[in-house]
Structure formats: structure tokens, C-alpha cells
């Protein structure tokens, strides 16, 4: 880690200290409300029927880690899109940062480190409540953080070079939301009809969800997420440099 990146981390940390209350509400309350409504409410309907797909487990225990991974993805999107886009605009914080000894790649690294820090903190808070509900295991934390970064890194790389915020909301609507609905968060992916079941392998969220549940070939899931992070990081170093030194 190059030292200048610490400055960028510091900038975001400083902002966070002023606004953490508001952001915590959105990123933590949101998944917890879902767990309560779906795990307990809908869970009663599901558990009554006792579907073979759940292998005897409760719906709450199924959906807990699923929502943890899904909210990690959302964190990755939230931190990797709006703030990056705003900062890269004329007058944004990146514009001020490049006039200091920091290089665009330091800015990228520093911001990502902060995202990782936020994702760890918020995921841990969610996980804590899930533990109380008996709806997840502590081992799910690294999976959640990896998932957040697997989204934040490539999304930052894209957001820094985009010219219109509408593109980011389109990304959310047409990529993030469909992933959210069909990556094994709300129901086991084995339930999907044949060809879709193969497609789910392409979904990074599915790998994250499986990691949080501790099911399937763990090494492969980790490798997929790491590959995304590395690819996103390489792309981001280039796109940050191109945008901020143009």
C-alpha cells in the first residue's frame, strides 16, 4: 500500500464521522427489516410446507446469510457508484486530490480501502443481529466483505468514467436488481429451470451467497470473487488515470 492512499482513506473517514448515523440507517436497517418480514412472516408459510429444497432447514436460516450477501452487494454498489461519480466530477473531491502528490491510482486504492472498511463494519453489524436471531454463522463475515469488494471495485472503475448519473441508476435497475432476485437470496438456485441454473454460475452474488451460507466449493467461490476484484482493480487504475489526468 502506497502511503498517499492513506490520505484518500482519511478524507472519506473524515466525511464518514460526520454522516455515519444517516448511512448506517440505510445500510443496516434495510436488510434487517427484510430478515424480519421474510424470515419470520413469510417463513411461517414456507416452513409449513417444508419444501425439500431447504433440506429441512428453516426459511429464516436460509434467508439470513442470503440477505447478508445481498446487502454486501448493495453496499458495493452504493459506495462504488454515487460517491465515485460525484468525486470525479468537476469540483469533486478527486479533483482536489489530484492536485496533491497523490496519483489517481492512490486515490482509487484509498477509496477502495475505505469501502472495504465500511463494508466490514456494516456487515458485522448486520451479522450481529442475525446471530441473535440464530439466522447466520460468524464465519460469513469474510464472504460478505469479499462480495462487497467484488462489486465495488469494477463499479468504481466504471463510475469514475461515466458522464451521466442515469447510467448508474440503469446499472442498478437492470443489473443489480435482477441479480438480487435470482441469485439464491430468496430461494435456492436449484429451483431455477435448467438453463437458468447454469447461468447462475455467472452471478457474482450467487458465489457470495454460497460463501456466506458456507455451502458448495468454497475455493471456487473465493477465486471467482477475487478474480473480479483483481480485474476491477486493474481496469480502475486505468480509468481513474484516464479520467483524472485528462
Amino acid at each position, binding site marked *: 500500500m502506497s502511503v498517499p492512499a492513506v490520505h484518500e482513506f482519511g478524507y472519506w473517514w473524515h466525511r464518514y464521522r460526520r454522516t455515519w448515523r*444517516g448511512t448506517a*440507517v*440505510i445500510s443496516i*436497517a*434495510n436488510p434487517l*427489516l*427484510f430478515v*424480519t*418480514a*421474510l424470515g419470520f*412472516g*413469510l417463513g*411461517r*408459510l*414456507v416452513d409449513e*410446507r417444508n*419444501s425439500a*429444497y*431447504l433440506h429441512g432447514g428453516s*426459511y429464516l436460516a436460509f434467508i439470513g446469510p442470503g440477505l447478508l450477501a445481498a446487502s454486501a452487494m448493495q453496499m458495493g454498489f452504493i459506495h462504488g457508484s454515487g460517491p465515485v461519480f460525484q468525486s470525479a466530477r468537476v469540483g469533486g473531491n478527486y479533483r482536489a486530490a489530484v492536485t496533491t502528490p497523490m496519483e489517481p491510482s492512490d486515490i482509487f486504492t484509498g477509496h477502495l480501502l475505505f469501502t472495504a472498511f465500511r463494508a466490514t463494519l456494516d456487515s458485522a453489524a448486520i451479522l450481529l443481529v442475525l446471530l441473535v436471531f440464530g439466522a447466520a454463522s460468524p464465519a460469513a463475515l469474510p464472504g460478505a466483505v469479499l462480495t462487497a469488494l467484488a462489486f465495488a471495485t469494477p463499479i468504481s472503475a466504471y463510475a469514475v468514467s461515466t458522464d451521466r448519473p442515469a447510467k448508474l441508476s*440503469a446499472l442498478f*435497475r*437492470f443489473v443489480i*436488481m*435482477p441479480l438480487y*432476485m*435470482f441469485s439464491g437470496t*430468496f*430461494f435456492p438456485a436449484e*429451483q*431455477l*429451470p435448467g438453463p437458468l441454473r447454469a447461468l447462475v454460475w455467472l452471478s457474482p452474488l450467487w458465489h457470495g451467497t454460497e460463501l456466506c451460507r458456507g455451502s458448495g466449493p468454497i475455493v471456487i467461490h473465493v477465486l471467482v470473487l477475487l478474480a473480479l476484484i483483481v480485474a476491477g482493480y486493474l481496469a480502475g487504475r486505468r480509468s481513474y488515470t484516464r479520467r483524472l489526468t485528462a
Partner: protein
Amino acid sequence: MSAAVLVERNLMIYKHTWYVLLAEIFEPILYLLSIGVGIGVLVGSVTGVTGGSPVRYAAFVAPALLATAAMNGAMNETTFLMFGKLKTDRTYESMLATPLSERDVALGEIAWAVLRGTLVSLAFLAVITALGLVESPWAILVVPGAALIAFAFATAGVVVVTFLRDWQDMQYIQLVMLPMFLFATTFYPLSVYPRPVQLVVQWLPLYQSIELLRNPALGVLSPRILVAAVYLAAMGALCLTVAVRRLGRTLAA
């Protein structure tokens, strides 16, 4: 009706950005598909619907998603978009320099929100009919129903927007809307809750909105439809009075 010209303006804007409306029904349709192939399989059919026979889970959820879409569309128009016009774009300043009054602005924006809510609900109705999720011809009642829901929430949105100070405040709206979406019997029948909780949930405007659409969509013609309609009409009328007065004061500062 000089307020009608606001509808005209919005139509002009959406002529450029019509895809926003398409995107608005994209999300409930995603939910529906996810439920159809996914959660529906886990749940099977729902038996807790009062006065009705067991129904497929997707058919149970579809009208609730429509009610939510009508609510969100209307609220989005009169809170998020209206706040932008008030504070950032200052759209209303240019209108108030013309013979239009603050009252015209309030009525016009609400009328537009109702109109677009109706349009979105028609599109959604077409989709769920195509997916075979409509159980009864009475389902056609969901169109005026969605318009009424849009009216109640659009007026409520105008009241709310007059209290907002900055963009940060917008998240408090989310903080109310999301739990309402999750707990107002969207995904499971009221009977899941213990009795005291039921009494609370029944007072939620979204619960009444869902009742208004779900009963006719499932072919259950119960007096609860009437109760819900009266509830929402009263809410809309009350909010309308307050909205016109408060927005007038906000704009004339």
C-alpha cells in the same frame, strides 16, 4: 382548469424520458418472476385469505405489488421529483410568475401523479394478465383502485415534501416506506400476525391499498373493498386540504 397545464408540462418532459415509466414497472415484474419461479414453489398456495379459496402464491402477491408500485410512483413524483423542482430546478418559480397560482401547482402535480399511477397500473395489469395471474374479471377494478391509491399517496407526498429541509431528509421517507412495504401483508396474509399486531397493520395505508386491489383481483367481492376505498378517499381528501395550504405557504415565502 389552469392546473391542467402542469399535466401538459409533465407529458412534455416524459416525452423525452418515457423509459423511466417502463423502468418503474420493471421492478415489480422482477419481483413477480422471482416469486413465481422461486418463493412460490416454497410456499405453494396461500390459504389465509379471508373469504376466499386457496390461491397460488404469485397470484396472491401480484395485486400487492401493483398497490406498492402505485404508491411508490405517486410518492416518488410528489416527494423526490417535487423536492427537486422546489429546491434545485426552481421550476415553480417560473410558473408562479405567470397567471398560475400556488393552488394550481399543487392540484396540477397531484393530477399528474394520479394519471401516471393509472397508466403504470394499466401496464402492470396487462403483464399479470399475460402471465395468467388474474383470477377474476373483477380484476378490472384494480385500475380505478390504483388511481385512488395514487391520489391518496400523491397528496400525502405533497404534505411530506413541505416539511423536508434538505436531501438528507429524504431517507426518513424510505424509513417509513420500506417497512410498510414489507409488513403490510404484501408477502403473506394478515393471519400470520398475532391479533394485536393485526390491529396495527390494518391501519397502515398500504394495507388498505392492498385490500383494495387484492380482493377484486382474486374475485373476492367483500365489503372490505368499500372500507379500503373510503379509508383512502378520506386520507386523500384530508391530505389534499393540508397539501394545498402548506404548499401555498412554502411557495409564497
